């Protein structure tokens, strides 16, 4: 299964090689979606974890034991099909190519797995068809 989490590192645990431990101890592949880490500061890491469901639960418990704040990413980008006119303006600001136009039909396609929820598309959409789904 896949799960998206937001990790908050107190300054004391910023040095810990978390993604290595997730892979080594829990057999979890972690894809870093967003990261803000600096020495002796609170760090933030947005990860997509993929692995066995029990292993992911165990890993989340282990990270909490280490003092890492774990919150599940409940929100994701939602596109209202009744409002979208497929103009494609959002594809000009999407940094990962999650939003793109199909080459033949020029219909908007949204690949959720590529989305890092940066939210830049929300104000750009001229017909306000894009929102954050809480």
């Amino acid at each position, binding site marked *: 299964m896949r799960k998206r989490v937001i990790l908050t590192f107190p300054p004391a645990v910023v040095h810990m090689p978390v993604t290595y431990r997730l892979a080594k101890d829990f057999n979890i592949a972690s894809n870093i979606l967003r990261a803000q880490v600096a020495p002796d500061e609170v760090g933030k890491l947005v990860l997509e974890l993929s692995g066995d469901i029990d292993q992911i639960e165990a890993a989340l418990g282990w990270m909490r034991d280490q003092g890492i704040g774990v919150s599940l990413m409940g929100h994701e980008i939602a596109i209202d099909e009744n409002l979208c006119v*497929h*103009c*494609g303006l959002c*594809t*000009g*600001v999407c940094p990962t190519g999650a939003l793109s136009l199909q080459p033949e039909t020029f219909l908007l396609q949204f690949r959720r797995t590529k989305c890092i929820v940066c939210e830049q598309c929300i104000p*750009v959409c*001229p*017909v306000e068809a894009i929102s954050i789904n809480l």
Partner: protein
Amino acid sequence: MPSIAEINDRIRKGTVRVMTTCELKQAVAERGVERVAEHVDVITTGTFEPMESSGIVLNLGHTDPPIRLHKATLNGVDAYCGIGAVDLYLGAAQAGEDLNYGGGHVIAALVAGKSVQFRATGMVSDCFPRRSFDTQITLNSVNQCYLFNPRNAYQNFIVGVNGGDRPLYTYLGTLQARLGNAIYASPGALSPLINDPQLKSIGIGTRIFLGGGVGYIAWEGTQHFPLQKRMPNETPIGPAATLALIGDLKQMAPRWVRGCRFHNYGPSLMLGVGIPLPVTDPSVVFAASVLDRDVVAPVIDFAIPRRVRPSFGLVTYEQLKSGHITIEGQRIRTAPLASIAFSMQVAQELQNWIRSGRFELTEPVAPLPLERNFLAQDQTILR
């Protein structure tokens, strides 16, 4: 080749042969202009793009006691009342209390059958004693309500980029700093007037698809500039001809009339416009067979906020639609502002109307001018 009257006979008999401009381009690539011209009577073109130079004329109906409108708002958006007592004009780009809601949204709400808050003060006289009037209106509760758009259906446009170091919020959407993206606004070779570059098949009085209803070409549009430089295939290398369009809002459909707004710029209206081109001569087929690789637009740097902005040269619509262009060695992603998907659907919808006999073609009443200069306002005093 048939005359327009003969094409209309075929529409009435149900034998008319209609191709969308996409179908035509493909057919010409396979079979050539002459063969295709023998087998098509009408080519349908369409576009769906923001057209901020749009608006409605609305007649409220007289109140009792009567009012002569002095100031009026619809859902908080100012309308112009300096016409008849209960006539007003509401522009699509007029902003309400903030930049996120404006005339385009009000127009779309009316088309969608929603009620709109109407508030007005009156200019008191012996004829019109009333001082104020507040009500809810819908499209059905007012007399006339028609779109009358001073500038629509631009024949080509520009591509916007931003060579500066901060994001710019423009009528083309958000342009990211340091050439972060490029935005183009025309559907290129699909665009109605690109398919008739010298305006031979259309004119004043031409019946068209406007917002899902029937409309007409009323006049040349504002900033109509047919003298723009042109390619050997006669398509212009930048913004050129424009049209003023008119049509009954009461016939229109919410799918093709959408209020919109550009972040930190303001409101506008996205509108579907479809124009039929009668094939009265093989040259009509030849002109409409133009492809994206043969139509170009200038890449303009919006970081310089002057009337004449620097250009990075010309790119083709084939490059633009591929998702990337290269400027000064830098690969830049492109995004359209016109909906290419909806543009194709407008052409298909008009094709269906003609095939089903719902829509007949018209002879233009007068040609559109081909000689118009593009004047700038330089505050010179003429004596």
